[in-house]
């Protein structure tokens, strides 16, 4: 379950950074900037994934440890994300996609 | 003499030091007094009031320091600090339970 919530946090971070103009440009230097509305959708997706991962942690580990773990992981993942955006922005979408596939298949297996 | 004094008071190092003292020492005294007042005025029993006062004291301290540094006039800072400290000290003395010292 920790793996799943870790993936969800990562996907959330990717979506959140895509909702910011500067980082969208880093991931897609050629593509035209999407409209503000579409950027906002990315933001909603991002927060949804983060919320999802929080709830998984809380259900799995209880309020105390769940939240501590979530904040700890979010810190590390967001830090890695900011390094990726700087040095290897072209890796983000593939990794995000693999993460998504991983999360979906993980959920299917455990269900 | 008077002119010398104003000269010193306008020196940068004096201004910096004075403000730092106001924040650190003045802030500490006022923090303690207000935390004590809080522990006197809260409705529940004294042990938990004392605990509350101690637990929030650092937030009060931080607030005072921020205030000291956000006010432009240093004289105003010291005036306000000293007046508040005096008022708090008087109320604290009045409210202090008898015979604890």
């Amino acid at each position, binding site marked *: 379950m920790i793996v799943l919530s870790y993936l969800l946090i990562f996907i959330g971070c990717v979506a959140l950074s895509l909702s910011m103009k500067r980082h969208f440009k880093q991931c897609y230097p050629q593509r035209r900037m999407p409209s503000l509305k579409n950027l906002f959708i990315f933001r909603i997706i991002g927060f949804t994934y983060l919320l999802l991962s929080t709830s998984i942690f809380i259900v799995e580990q209880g309020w105390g440890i769940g939240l501590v773990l979530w904040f700890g992981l979010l810190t590390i993942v967001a830090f890695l994300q900011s390094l990726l955006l700087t040095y290897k922005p072209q890796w983000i979408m593939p990794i995000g996609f693999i993460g998504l596939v991983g999360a979906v298949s993980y959920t299917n297996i455990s269900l | 003499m008077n002119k010398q004094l104003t000269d010193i008071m306008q020196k940068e190092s004096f201004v910096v030091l004075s403000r730092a003292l106001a924040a650190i020492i003045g802030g500490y005294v006022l923090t303690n007094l207000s935390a004590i007042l809080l522990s006197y005025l809260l409705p529940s029993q004294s042990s938990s009031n004392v605990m509350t006062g*101690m637990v929030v004291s650092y937030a009060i301290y931080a607030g005072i320091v921020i205030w000291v540094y956000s006010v432009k006039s240093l004289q105003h800072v010291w005036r306000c600090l000293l007046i508040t400290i005096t008022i708090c000290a008087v109320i604290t003395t009045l409210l202090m339970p008898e015979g604890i010292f």
Partner: protein
Amino acid sequence: MNTNTQGNFRQSMKWLHTWAGIAVAIILYFMFVTGSAGYFNDEITYWMQPETPTVNNGIDQQSMMVLAEKRLAKVAPNATQWWVNFPIGREYALSIWWPEKTKIDADNDGKMDDEWHDEVLDLRTGEPIAVRKTGGGNTLYYMHYALHYIPSVLGYWLTSLCAMFMLIGLITGIVIHKQIFKDFFTFRAGKKQHSWRDMHNVLSVLPLPFHIMITYSGLLFLMFTTMPGVLTASYGPGEENRDRFYDAIYIQDAVHKDTVGIAANNISLSSVFPDVEQRWGKGQVSYIGIENRGDINAHIELGEVGYDGLESGRSLTYNAVNGDLQHASHGSKSSSAAMTFYNIMTMLHEGSFSGPLLRWLYFISGLMGAGMIATGMILWASKRRERADKKGFASNGLILIERLNVGTIVGLLIGIATYFWANRLLPVNFAERENWEIHSLFISWAATLAYPYMVAHKRSINKIWVDQLTIAAVLYGLLPVLNFLTTNVHLGNTLLSGNWVLAGFDLTMLVFSVCFAFSAYRMLAKEKKVMATLNTSNVKNSKMARNNTITTDKQVILPIEKVEL
């Protein structure tokens, strides 16, 4: 120049942020680094006592208990307390503890005082094992709030003061940061001070919940020392009144009766195990102890390994005369909302409830805190360095901070590496070896602080960074090698036997070494680039520099360092 009084709120907060930070940066950095290491205090101690026998899972706790009790009866037949720690959870050895009445303090009216003794036991024979004396991870952990070489109370006050500066730094940092969420992931590389600012922001904002929690709870830990006014104003001065207050806030969970002076035979400690194992299952005891030994009021206390949420696990208290269960506790109870807040914050700070993953997250967050302080120090210097380079001269203050930065940021880490080296190199029976381990930490740190001054005339500040980073890379990188040469708990054995704690220590040192080597390499590349651009305008620059020497008497020329290379 009243920069602090002019301008708007944000401006004054910026001033406060900068100077509150730089004023205590060195101590804060020290606190963050040693505190982070403290999250692995038991593991570090384990590594620093390589004689500790490897845990054999085949031996059950009750038979360990029999051995421990036999040994205690031999070495401490008259002790009023016996304690045994089992190698479970984050304990890595079977150890026994007992107090002995000794006259220690001459100034204490010759009063008898307890001196604690401890031994590590062999799991099969129960005989004591000679483990080397070491400061271990606990000394690092203890230093992060009590510092070293000064009375601990003074240490508490100093670290609390620094934590207060840190709190101010955090609040003002939030105020002056214009776009916390917009810049959440932003790190622009290769842009001099902007990159440092971005990194400082990233290292501050991402772990912000951790930073706020760790700072405020750190203050709360020491509040009985640093905020005694509130307590005194309601309970009065003196130790007795203080104890009255503690009795009121801490609900006595276990039944701890005092001795009555009537001698009685006590049951053996291992005899309670069947009942305990029925309640908790096999092998779940983390410690067991007997208090008031030999008295009719003697009792046996056991703690369960593991945690229930943030709270420590269950404990059981037995009557040591008839073996009846006196009390079974489950977690702590709080007497008030403030007490709950205090408990939660201090538990979060210590993170004792953490499993391996969470412990690593704590460690990394702590290091990010150290990185936040370090980047703040570098940012301070690099901003003024850019300005100074434009003007052609730098102030003494800037040069001082630039040199202190290297000696602090890399130097402390070199000091800690030396601490580990000393542990392996000092002879096992060296007198006061545990103190000399720590002395070597501070001696080497002092050397790295002095080094920039000793070589200032021939090496640029960038070169000094490269030097110290290289030294750090070598010291950390060779630690596993040293471990291989001096002990048999080296990577070859620990990896094969799956001892991930000891192997993890060596591997972590290798990772640190790679990080330092990489930084040194990048720094060297940067220095070469600077040199290349300087060489083209060498003549012009040195002329300018010389002019500056003449025109400014008190200011020290900065470019000269680079030019003369």
